[in-house]
């Protein structure tokens, strides 16, 4: 049976309703929710800061 090209994945999980998920939106085939991408958080510190093998910082840590 040829059902055409693949469009998208829908995860059907009734228990998610009770776990605080956002309300799903309605579509032709029922209620389907699309996740929105999270907003970017600022980098918490300079993660590129290098450390030598002994673990000491090559420069002072950002505190």
């Amino acid at each position, binding site marked *: *049976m*040829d*059902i*055409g*090209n*693949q*469009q*998208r*994945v*829908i*995860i*059907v*999980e*009734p228990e*998610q*309703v009770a776990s605080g*998920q956002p309300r*799903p939106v*309605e*579509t032709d*085939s*029922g*209620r*389907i*929710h*699309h*996740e*929105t*991408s*999270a907003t*970017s*958080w600022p*980098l*918490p*510190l300079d*993660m590129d800061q290098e*450390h030598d093998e002994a*673990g*000491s*910082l090559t420069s002072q*840590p*950002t*505190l």
Partner: protein
Amino acid sequence: MSSEMEAGLSSDGARRLDALNAIVRLYQNRYGELEGMADLAKARAAIAARHRRLGRLAEEHERIAKQMHALTSEVERIERWMEFCLEDVVARAKEVHAEGWSPSPVLGFRLWAVRSEGLFGVKMAWHSRRMKATCLTTRGGDEIPHTDGRCGRLGCGIYAAKSVDPLYREFDIAGIGDVALGLVALKGKVVEHDSGYRGAEAEVIALAASTGKHLLLTANGDRIDEVFADPTLITREPETESERHRLFEMETFVEIQARRATEWTLGTSNV
């Protein structure tokens, strides 16, 4: 605390050293210059030098402890950031691939060929109203239905069409003989295609099945299971006028059941 105690002597040892030092001072006062004082001076100098070194090491120890504490805090903060990154990767993947989730099953339509020994889909016989998909190509059990092309363009999963008409056309329903048309509720991972779905799990929630002129229409779960277990039960149902009439009734029945299921799911009512 005496210097001897700091250097590691026991309190008894330190008391003995203090007592001996006091006696030496007494004898210096009594007799002036004493023999062996050079060695005593060397020992005192050696102890003092080591105390200075111990002091420097204590400072270094404190500095290292502070640095370890700072690094531990940074690791904790980076781990929190990493947790966000992991969630963000998943969220972006869902958005890029337009993934959605639904609290209610996705509905579709299926056909089975009715034989006395069972109801047969394209790939295999169904023996109850419920079916869980396996991948017949990879034999793997993860992430079914596959969506990465490993088992072909259409791939594995339980197939269901979005509407009945294409099913009737593609399978030449008039020439197929005894046939069953079902409304299935797909659950778990469901892959939407242009005109149908592939699901990980399916449950038949309405069944219209014919054998000869007999036609069975039911939306009762137990009754559906009975028919899947013994298709000859269909012959106990009333006869219909013609094949064309039969196929029309089957289509109408499952479509009505689909509308009812959707209305119920969406919380609307005709009452």
